[in-house]
C-alpha cells in the first residue's frame, strides 16, 4: 500500500518508475481479460448450439458435427488425480527427507537435482514416455498390476503401455519437483522450537514428523498440492504422447483416453469447419476456467498459510 502513498511528493523519476510498473501489472490483467473474452467470443457458436450438454455428453463426431467434451474433461481430471495421488505423498516424503534427515551440505545438492528435474521440457517427458516408459509399462508394470489385482475392471484391457495410467504417472514425474520444493519450504517454516520441544518430550523422529511437522505444515502441503494440480491440468505435450488419444470414457486405467489439451494439440491444425473450431475453442475455455479456479483457490490457500506461519 505504500506504493500509492506519497507518489506525488517524491521526485519525478520515482513517479515515472511507479507508473511504469503499474502499467506493466495492468497489462497483465488486461491480457488475461482479453484472452478470456476472445475465448468466449470464438466459442459462442458452440455454446449456442450445445449449451451445457457440451460439458456432460460424450460424443466427439466431427463428421456429424456433434460435440460433447465429457471424455476430454474426464481424461484431464482422472489423469491429474492419478498424478496427484502419486506425486503428493512422494513429494512429502522427499521433502521430509531433505528437511529432517539430510545434513544441509548434501541436502543442497539433492535440492538442485529436484529443481533441475523441474526444468526438463515437457516434450522430453513425452518422448521418453512414449519410447522408453510406455514399453516398460506394457511389459512390466501392467502385467504386474494384472497379476496382483486379477481381472478388476480398473486394470482390464490389453496392456499396450499407453493410456490413462501412463499419462498419470508421467504427469506425476513432472509435478513432483514443484510439490517437493514448496513442501520443503513449508516444513522449513515449522519453528525449530516446536520440534525441539517435541524431541525433548521424548518423541521419536517419526512421532515428531507425523504429529508436529506434518500437522503444522498441513495447509502448506495442501497449497503445494494445488499448485501441482494447476500445472498438471494444463500439461499438453507429454500427455498427448502417452494418453492414447481416444474419445472414450473407460473404467480401465489401461485404456487409451484423452485430455482437453491432447484433443486441442491433435485436432486444432486440421479443423476447418466453423462449429468444429468453435467446439475446440470452447474446450480451451473450459480448461481456462478450470485452471483459473484452481489457481485462485491455491493462491488464497497459500496466502493464508503464509500468514499463519509467517512468524518463526
Amino acid at each position, binding site marked *: 500500500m505504500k506504493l500509492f502513498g506519497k507518489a506525488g511528493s517524491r521526485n519525478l523519476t520515482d513517479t515515472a518508475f511507479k507508473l511504469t510498473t503499474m502499467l506493466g501489472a495492468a497489462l497483465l490483467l488486461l491480457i488475461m481479460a482479453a484472452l478470456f473474452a476472445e475465448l468466449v467470443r470464438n466459442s459462442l457458436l458452440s455454446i449456442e448450439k450445445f449449451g451445457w450438454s457440451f460439458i456432460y455428453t460424450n460424443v466427439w463426431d466431427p463428421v456429424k458435427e456433434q460435440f460433447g467434451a465429457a471424455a476430454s474433461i474426464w481424461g484431464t481430471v482422472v489423469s491429474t488425480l492419478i498424478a496427484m495421488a502419486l506425486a503428493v505423498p512422494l513429494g512429502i516424503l522427499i521433502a521430509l527427507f531433505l528437511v529432517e534427515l539430510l545434513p544441509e551440505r548434501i541436502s543442497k545438492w539433492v535440492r538442485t537435482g529436484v529443481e533441475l528435474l523441474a526444468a526438463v521440457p515437457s516434450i522430453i517427458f513425452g518422448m521418453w514416455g512414449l519410447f522408453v516408459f510406455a514399453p516398460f509399462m506394457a511389459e512390466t508394470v501392467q502385467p504386474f498390476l494384472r497379476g496382483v489385482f486379477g481381472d478388476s475392471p480398473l486394470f482390464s484391457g490389453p496392456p499396450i503401455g499407453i493410456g490413462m495410467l501412463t499419462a498419470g504417472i508421467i504427469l506425476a514425474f513432472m509435478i513432483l519437483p514443484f510439490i517437493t520444493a514448496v513442501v520443503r519450504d513449508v516444513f522449513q517454516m515449522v519453528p525449530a522450537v516446536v520440534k525441539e520441544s517435541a524431541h525433548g518430550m521424548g518423541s521419536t523422529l517419526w512421532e515428531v514428523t507425523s504429529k508436529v511437522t506434518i500437522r503444522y505444515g498441513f495447509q502448506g502441503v495442501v497449497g503445494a498440492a494445488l499448485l501441482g494440480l494447476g500445472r498438471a491440468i494444463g500439461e499438453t505435450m507429454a500427455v498427448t504422447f502417452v494418453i492414447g488419444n481416444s474419445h472414450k470414457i473407460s473404467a480401465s486405467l489401461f485404456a487409451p483416453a484423452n485430455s482437453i489439451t491432447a484433443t486441442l494439440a491433435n485436432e486444432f*491444425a*486440421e479443423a*476447418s469447419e466453423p462449429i468444429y473450431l468453435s467446439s475446440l475453442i470452447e474446450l480451451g475455455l473450459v480448461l481456462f476456467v478450470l485452471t483459473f479456479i484452481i489457481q485462485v483457490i491455491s493462491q488464497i490457500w497459500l496466502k493464508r498459510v503464509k500468514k499463519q506461519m509467517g512468524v518463526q
Partner: protein
Amino acid sequence: MKSIKIAIVVLMGLVFVSFGCSDRNGNSDKQKAVTINGAGATFPYPVYSQWAHEYKKITSIRLNYQSIGSGGGIMQIKAKTVDFGASDAPLKPEELSEAGLVQFPMVIGGVVPVLNLEGFEAGEIHLTAENLADIYLGKINKWNDAKMKMSNPGLNLPDKAIATVHRADGSGTTWIFTNYLYKVSDEWKSKVGFGKAISWPEANNIAGKGNEGVAAFVKKVDGSIGYVEYAYALQNKMNYVKLQNKAGVFVMPNAKSFQAAAANADWANADGYYLVLTDQPGKDSWPITGASFILMYRNQKDEVKAKEVLKLFDWCYKKGGELAKKLDYVPMPVKVVEMVEKKWSEEIKANGSPVWK
C-alpha cells in the same frame, strides 16, 4: 553474479546484431526476386520443400511453404495471407465458388494398410474392401475369421485378435482412408462417415499421432493393423497387404498402382477437380489413393506474382517428377497436367485477362 549479467548482456547484443544482419540480407534478396508464400497440408511437405530448393537454384525464386495442416492452409488462403493454400482433401465445388478459389491436384500419394502379424510377408495377406471395413467396424476381430479365410485360401491364418490402430490427430490420411471405407461399405457409410477426424467405432482404441505414431504402434502391438502413407510403410519396412480394387483384382501398393488410379480417374468431368481418388476403376488401380491439392484465387491482384506461382507449379509438374519419385510420391499423369494447365488459362485471371497463356 556480475559476470553472468555481463554475459547475458553480451549475448543479447549478439542476438540483436545477428537479427539485424539477417534482416538486411532478407531485404536485399527480396529486391532481387519474388518470394512465393504457401501454407497447408503436411503430407506433401517433404516434396514441396525439395521442389522449392531445386527451383530456387535455377530461378532464385524462393518458395516459403508452411506445413501447418490442411485446415490451416484453407484458413490462410481465405484470409489472403498466402499466395496459395494446400489441402489433402479437395474442397467441394460450392465451397470453392463461394470463396472464389480454384483448386488443382499437385501430387499423388497412397494410403496403405499395414499390419503386424508374424510369419507373413508383405503382400501375402489379401484383404477385400468389405473385410477391411468390417475389421475397422469391429465385426471381424480375429485374423482367422471365416471371411478372412475366404479371401486367403491356402494361408494358415493365426487365431489372434486384431487390434486396429488409427490416427489420433486430424489428418488428410484419415480423410482418404475413411473416404474409401465410406465408398465400399454401406454400414460404414450410415454409421461413421468420413473426415479428417471421425468418431471411431467402439472396436478401435489405439491411436497414434502422425504417420510415425501409427507406424510405431503397429510395430509394437502383435496382431495389429493400421494405415499409413505409402512412404512411411516403405521407410519403416512395414508389412502391408494386397487390397482388392473395384475391378476385383488384388493389387500391391506402389507408385504404378497409385498412378493407375490417378490416370483412370475421370478428371475431365470432375467439377472443380472435386475428385477423390479412392476406389477408382481399372484393374491396376490401388484403391486407397489420394491427391494433394493446391488452392488459388480465381482473380489475382498481382499479375506478375500470379504468373510466377503458376510457373513454379508448371515446373513442378514437368521437371519435378523424378524428385517426387525419389521421395516415394507419385507425379501427376501427363494427361491430368494438360487438363490442369488448360484450366489455369481459362479460370485464373488478373484484371480480367488470363494469367497463364
